[in-house]
């Protein structure tokens, strides 16, 4: 196996056995980033010198027998995590000059665990999007290719993270998921990704999109690698009032549990009209794999599923409209001068925000405004309560749910761009879990007729990521997904 194809689990073994050094891994990945990033645009900022410095430190620590859990593992950091001294943009021009004087808790944990940061991964602006085309730093190209040669979107918002991992530029990456922003790009890029339970990973230092939904999680090429990363990313943080005060389980161990005796629910409402045949088939394959693994399959209903998207497109923009008020050109970020303060605000925000961000701020401002709050925001919160109740009732009967991750494979850059609502439909299967706060994982499980990867989604109970990992591992093994994208480090470009 080439260095670039190595999983994190294998690399940790090789590092421990001194078959490879962290510096060698870092150099190979830095070279891959240099070679592929001009094309894929997976990174907004690359940090090759920092990566090599961290790799040397990891080797030194290992030489002293003090290597922490991820010593020497090269990763991409979504550019939504504030990194001290390294520019952090959230994919927005309004933060183009912003160099955080602090570190996010998740990136600090990864740093402390010895991970090597290759750079800051591209994303939809402020994580608002399902395609990565809303980035202020240009779209990311999906390393997977379609027969017609059209450049594909990697999904979003963690599109840069997904592309970097799929193209072997990084062994793993951080993502954030507000309505599907880890799971959907993982599915589009043929990798694994988990959005843990809301509260599992600290939100401190992650640039906020929608506070009640945002949750960090790992993306990697295998379920086990995600488990390894998540363990280091998770944990109670007193700096985040919504962080859960819970012990972090050994997720990696849970990957080997199997599904024997588990009850797996198949929600009827996820069988939506117009879903491509291959996705239906893949879903059925997944059901068969789990049944064969000893799970009991149960048909269940989550009756309010179809209202997930409309709830999401009220709640998330409402919170975002408030969270993004701080980008006003006064204390940090870009500023466009104006004749007075209001003029300065309006020009700064008009120039600094892209169209999708403006749209969502406008929608959010409207649904919170006097006279409309009850009809939109309050109503959405009540329906959100019903969506949570759906999950609670179902999880009284089953241990996990199996669904497709997205209603389609990756689409081309430029497709679905004409109308925001069509784009929003991408999140139809991922949004309900975000609203309920339950964990969800996407596992690469097959290809569509065009040779593009498709993912299956496993949802679990609050704080029961272990079952999600157990189920996902069984799917992964049964699917035997060994396909590689067309654009890949060391491969044909």
């Amino acid at each position, binding site marked *: 196996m080439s260095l670039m194809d190595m999983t994190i689990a294998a690399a940790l073994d090789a590092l421990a056995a001194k078959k490879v050094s962290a510096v060698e891994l870092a150099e190979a990945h830095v070279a891959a980033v240099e070679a592929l990033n001009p094309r894929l645009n997976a990174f907004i900022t690359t940090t090759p010198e920092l990566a090599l410095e961290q790799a040397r430190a990891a080797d030194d620590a290992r030489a002293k027998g003090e290597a922490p859990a991820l010593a020497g593992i090269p990763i991409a950091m979504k550019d939504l*995590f*504030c990194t001290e001294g390294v520019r*952090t943009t*959230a994919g927005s021009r309004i*933060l183009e000059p*912003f160099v*955080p*004087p*602090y570190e*996010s808790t998740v990136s600090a944990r990864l740093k402390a665990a010895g991970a090597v940061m290759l750079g800051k991964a591209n994303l939809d602006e402020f994580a608002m999007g399902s395609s990565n085309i809303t980035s202020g730093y240009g779209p990311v190209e999906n390393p997977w290719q379609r027969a017609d040669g059209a450049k594909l979107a990697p999904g979003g918002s963690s599109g840069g993270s997904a592309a970097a991992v799929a193209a072997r530029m990084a062994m793993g990456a951080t993502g954030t998921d507000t309505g599907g922003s880890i799971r959907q790009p993982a599915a589009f890029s043929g990798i694994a990704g988990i959005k843990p339970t809301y509260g599992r990973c600290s*939100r*401190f*230092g*992650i*640039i*906020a999109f*929608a*506070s*009640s939904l945002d949750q960090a999680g790992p993306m990697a090429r295998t379920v086990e690698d995600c488990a390894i990363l998540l363990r280091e990313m998770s944990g109670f943080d*007193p*700096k*985040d*009032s*919504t962080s859960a005060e819970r012990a972090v389980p050994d997720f990696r161990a849970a990957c080997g549990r199997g599904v024997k005796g588990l009850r797996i629910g198949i929600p009827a409402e996820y069988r939506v009209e117009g879903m491509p045949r291959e996705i239906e088939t893949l879903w059925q394959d997944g059901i068969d794999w789990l049944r064969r693994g000893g799970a009991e399959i149960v048909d269940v209903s989550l009756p309010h599923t179809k209202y997930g998207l409309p709830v999401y497109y009220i709640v998330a923009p*409402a*919170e975002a*409209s*408030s969270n*993004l*008020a*701080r980008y*006003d050109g*006064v*204390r*940090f970020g870009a500023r466009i001068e104006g004749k007075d*303060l*209001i003029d300065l*605000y309006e020009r700064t925000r008009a120039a600094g925000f892209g169209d999708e961000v403006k749209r969502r701020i406008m929608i959010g*401002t409207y649904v*919170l*405004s*006097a006279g409309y*709050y009850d009809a939109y*925001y309050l109503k959405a919160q009540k329906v959100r309560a019903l969506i949570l109740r759906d999950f609670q009732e179902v999880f009284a009967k089953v241990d996990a749910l199996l669904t497709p991750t997205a209603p389609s494979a990756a689409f081309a850059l430029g497709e679905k761009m004409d109308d925001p609502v069509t784009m929003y439909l991408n999140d139809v299967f991922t949004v309900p879990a975000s609203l309920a706060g339950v964990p969800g994982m996407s596992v690469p499980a097959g290809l569509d007729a065009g040779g593009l990867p498709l993912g299956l989604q496993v949802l679990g109970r609050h704080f029961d990521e272990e079952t999600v990992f157990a189920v996902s591992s069984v799917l992964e093994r049964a699917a035997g997904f060994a396909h590689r994208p067309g654009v890949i480090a060391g491969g044909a470009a």
Partner: protein
Amino acid sequence: MSYVIEGTTGAWELVIGLEVHAQVISRSKLFSGAATAFGAAPNSQVSFVDAGFPGMLPVINRECVAQAVRTGLGLAAHINLVSRFDRKNYFYADLPQGYQISQYEHPIVGAGAIEIELESGETRTIGITRLHLEQDAGKSMHDQHPSKSLIDLNRSGVALMEIVSEPDMRSPEEAGAYLRKLRTILRYLGTCDGNMDEGSMRADVNVSVRKHGEPFRTRCEIKNVNSIRFVMQAIEAEAKRQIEIWEAGGTVDQETRLFEPARGVTRSMRSKEDAHDYRYFPEPDLLPLVLEEAWVESLKATLPELPDAKRARLMRDFGLSRYEASIFVMEQVTADFFETVVAGRDAKLVANWMLGDFFAHLNRTGTSIETSPVTAARLGELLDLITDKTINGKIAKEVLELMFDTGDAAGAIVEARGLKQVTDTGAIDEAIDRVVAANADKLAEYKAGKDKLFGFFVGQVMKAMQGKGNPALVNEALKRKIGEPASS
């Protein structure tokens, strides 16, 4: 007689409600670990949370919550065991997040009341609508630079209690009495220092006017008035402005205004011209604030005795008048001082000396009870010298002045300056003889029936003895020596 303003169309009644922003006494801010002390270097007491940096999150300070609960208990108000924080969204240069974290729908404290006392001796109960916790904004300085406003975020994020009254006040005096009483209660509780000069207590004043018996008319809000005197002036100025408008056939627009003390008028606030739409919604970075009943009870158990209760006790236990007791309880330190001095002493004597010479000297020297060189123990020592007749009252006045000016104790002053009362009858007799000899004419008048001259002789004898004669002994000896005047 209730307060009215006479207009050309008759008498107008005032309707006043106050929203007081009281800065919570705490070491660190409501949602960040930055310090709260007043007067620090610009932007030094600012965390990234207070400056609204990307990815920063609020974490609530338990002490600030406790302070709000204590205040609620001190206002005899309902404590809501479940409350919630909301975001109030608006753009302003000194509001770094673009929203203020406040409590809109579910405040931590509900309805309560304050009893106020008026000049006339009449008391009134003013309803408290609610109290909620919120964060303060930073400070914009508009006069430091020709074309720029400068922003200091030191105050950004400091905990405030917004205490909202019912529109129960009817005169500037009542508003003043309400603010003074609220300030006293907050200071007793130790939840706000009540220092209006430093901005730790500010009032927004809602004023409307009406004819007697009418429902409420449109009110205006006068923002951020920073002294009790200005509050009273602003109310009067605003009421007169509204009366003029109504009487000229106009209508008062509901708006936010500013009081200009120099001109004694209120004016419309330009920056608030936009009709505000604050888009309140539940703060998603925080969870509902749920208080344990037992915790609230434990806070209740440690509340100090509050001014109303203390006043009643001082009246009962020491026989003080309501007026005397009211003055002592205005500040807890004053009441403590009184109670320290009065222990084992005559209450009337202590009260008279404190309310008279002692307060006068505090004023004269610009000191306060806390900074005065004359501590309770030292004042007590002075009073003891009076009681045991070591010095007389007149000398005591001089001694107290010297105590303030030199910082020395009463005993030392009396000793060093030989001010001990003279009880030696020989010395007294000798002084009387001298005085009588020098005033033969006056003695004759006295003898002839001008009995008022007895006081003259007492004064002269005391003077001859540098004021140190024991007044009782001097009287006695004098009577013995010059006898009774002839009855007229």
